[in-house]
């Protein structure tokens, strides 16, 4: 993924805390939003039945309006039923509390049948957010307290997901450490064929883990110093201008020698041993990383962006043509990040989960057609000929997934 100016923000706990505060403070405050306040006191309500709120989206004298048929319901399960009567400018409705999206429906358009989502709500002040409406925030009150507290709020589920994902990244880097060790053994022995095989085995670990790339930085280095940028040191491509002060090393330097030169030189051996060293450092770095839910979402979207900008273009593995191996690694990494968010996201936007599930299946099905157990890395080489004939098909498969993943971060904040 490396470019000369990698985006870097540190995923240290201190930064996480600060960012979370900033986000909360600067959220969507465009209109009429009563600040979240203490829940009204009063008797518990909502036992037994489900409350229903009908939300009408309609063009009223030239302005699109978002109008619920009631502004207050008792605590408990609430079904929101949304019908777009004639508001061409409104395509989504969200239920928000404390700047957080609790539930959402998209793809609303005049003429379609009503859609619903159901949430169990505790007492408090909420808002309906209807982007595009003349008054886009509508206050909504829930009175009393839910008979039973909702089990496992979306946020607590998401928080658990980030821990699962952190463990996944650690595992991938551990396995990469083993794999580059094997690569190094072959390189130091001058065995080109074995080294190529080992290279193909090691690559996917990096491609899966590089969603967390902004955190791949050694402590104590300023952001602009590539000597402290482990992504630069491990994954820098020759096609990108090289930082003369730091030089060029890493996976792709080894790749060039093995495939273009077809031989192991003393330089190759140096690249390889440097790679082992730097992956070892990366192990230490990722063990300390912590993530917010939106980091997983942004990371997953970033991996799919990588697929489009580096793999389908054939830039990543310009000597070995193992781009489809990396492609599969990026997708797997994105899928893992998504899987960590999925249980929480399902409570917030079940439709998006359904869409994403289908899109991952579709991308995997496309990728499966390129599998070749006899090829290095398990995929057909992405030759210039294959790129010419198939890149449009691969793009068509990956773009919808990218668009959907890009919509996740705002929902899991």
């Amino acid at each position, binding site marked *: 993924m490396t470019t000369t100016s990698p985006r870097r923000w540190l995923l240290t706990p201190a930064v996480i805390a600060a960012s979370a505060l900033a*986000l909360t403070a*600067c*959220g*969507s*405050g*465009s209109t009429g939003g009563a600040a979240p306040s203490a829940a009204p006191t009063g008797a518990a309500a909502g036992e037994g039945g489900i409350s229903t709120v009908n939300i009408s989206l309609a*063009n009223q004298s*030239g302005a699109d309006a978002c109008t619920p048929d009631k502004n207050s319901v008792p605590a408990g399960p609430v079904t929101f039923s949304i019908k*777009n*009567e*004639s508001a*061409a*400018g409104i*395509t989504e409705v969200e239920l928000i509390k404390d700047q957080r999206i609790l539930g959402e429906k998209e*793809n609303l*358009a*005049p*003429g*379609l049948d009503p859609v619903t989502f159901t949430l169990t709500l505790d007492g408090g002040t909420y808002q309906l957010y209807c*982007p*595009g409406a003349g008054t886009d925030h509508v206050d909504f009150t829930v009175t009393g307290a839910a008979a039973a507290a909702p089990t496992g709020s979306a946020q607590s589920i998401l928080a658990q997901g980030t821990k699962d994902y952190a463990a996944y990244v650690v595992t991938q880097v551990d396995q990469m450490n083993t794999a580059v060790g094997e690569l190094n053994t072959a390189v130091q022995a001058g065995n080109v064929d074995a080294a190529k095989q080992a290279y193909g085995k090691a690559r996917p670990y990096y491609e899966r883990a590089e969603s967390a790339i902004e955190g791949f930085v050694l402590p104590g280095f300023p952001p602009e110093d590539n000597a402290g940028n482990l992504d630069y040191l491990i994954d820098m491509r020759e096609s990108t201008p090289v930082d003369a002060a730091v030089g060029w090393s890493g996976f792709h330097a080894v790749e060039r020698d093995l495939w273009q030169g077809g031989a192991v030189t003393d330089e190759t051996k140096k690249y390889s041993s440097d790679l082992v060293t730097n992956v070892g450092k990366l192990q230490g770095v990722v063990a300390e990383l912590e993530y917010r839910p*939106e980091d997983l*979402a*942004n990371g997953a979207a970033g991996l799919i962006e990588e697929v489009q900008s580096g793999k389908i273009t054939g830039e990543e593995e310009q000597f070995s043509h193992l781009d489809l191996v990396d492609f599969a690694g990026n997708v797997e990494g994105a899928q893992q990040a998504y899987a960590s968010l999925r249980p929480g996201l399902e409570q917030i936007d079940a439709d998006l989960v359904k*869409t994403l599930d*289908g*899109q991952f299946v*579709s991308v995997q099905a496309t990728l499966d057609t390129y599998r070749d157990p006899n090829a290095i890395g398990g995929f057909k080489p992405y030759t210039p000929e294959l790129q010419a004939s198939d890149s449009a098909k691969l793009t*068509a498969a990956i*773009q*919808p997934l990218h*668009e*959907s993943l*890009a*919509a996740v*971060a*705002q929902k899991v*904040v």
Partner: protein
Amino acid sequence: MDAGDGAAEDSVPQQPRQPPEAVATGTSRRGLLRGALLGGVGGLVVGGAGGAVAGRTLISEDSTDAVNLGTKYPFYGQRYQVGIATEPQRHCLFATFRLAPGATTRDLQVLLARWSAAIAVLQDGRSVGSVEPTSPLQPPRDTGEAHDLSPASLTVTLGLGPSVFGERFGLARFKPALFSDLPPLNGDFLDPKFTGGDLSLQACADDPQVSYHAFRNLARIGRGVVVPYWTVLGFGRASAGEGQATPRMLLGFKDGTRNIKTDDQMAQFVWIDKSDQPWLDGGSYQVVRKIRMLLETWDADRIGDQQEIFGRDKAEGAPLTGTKEFDHPDFAARDAEGELIINPLAHIALSAPENNGGVMIKRRSYNYTDGLAADGQLDAGLLFISYQNDPQHFIRLQNRLGANDLLNEYIRHIGSGIFVVPPAPEEGHYIGEALFA
């Protein structure tokens, strides 16, 4: 240029079918005055004679060539989709899409509803969602490049290809008997890269950036359900509406002198009415042909030959049997040696309604260029778009032209598509809603 040199020279100016609205309030996201300032002003040239302010000289008081960028067209409540009878705008982005392999009937339904709503907003000169969302984590909904541009008379016309009515979506019972893929036609030189498509969008405007913005955002809304297939960006309208001077296509001749212009002609030849599919009444069939022109060889052809090929003179556009553009061609007139003055294989002779059982088609074409071809030649031509209430009208004309037209030496039909354009929806509804009832 192509088929259907329809007889319209006697036409009486008509009221526009969809009264355009000049923006006069501050509700638009786009600036208003840019268009208004130009309204009523003719062509401006830079550096002309006359010493006008800042070197600009007004060379014409002719208001027919003026553009008011504040003009906008309504989407809902029209009987017909706009972009057919609408006075041709200066630029047009034509695009076809293929439905993704996994797309379902429900996906298609939601797409048509989302596209309809978005087109209504776009034609109104607004953004399709926020350009700058309040959440830093949200990608902008609207791509933003038309954020402060005027509506520019944008019209987006949505068409459905024959494949939509196959078994795949369970919509076969809605397919009109007249509608199927175009058969192979005389003169076809089709490149699969520019042929066919499941859906079409024709986004025309007086500002090409407004056209492109509409296409780009609609394509984005469709991501996952449709994949853009082929697109052509047309410039310099090559057809005229009522009250517009006849423009020229890249061969330098006027195009569309005898185009359909009146309501009566539209009713007779363009709008589907009382068909076997009542939901399509008020619709039309859209035929699109990407016609490459071999400009370098044409440019070196002698004027006598060029004029014989068309059957008209070049500057005035008069038939060779007349002196003025709108003189009626006399296909029987002979010269002193007894030769027909208009070659029977001339473009206007083969396509004239009187030589085709009275049939006319509505043409709404644009010039295009794709830059340079691999061999270094200019890669350009005509984005031919026609509307008719029976595809056979186009098929008969093109088969005749494709077999015999003298012009064929200089043109190649490299792209093709046919779509049916349903009627416009009422407010609260969407294009094609009847398919999902």
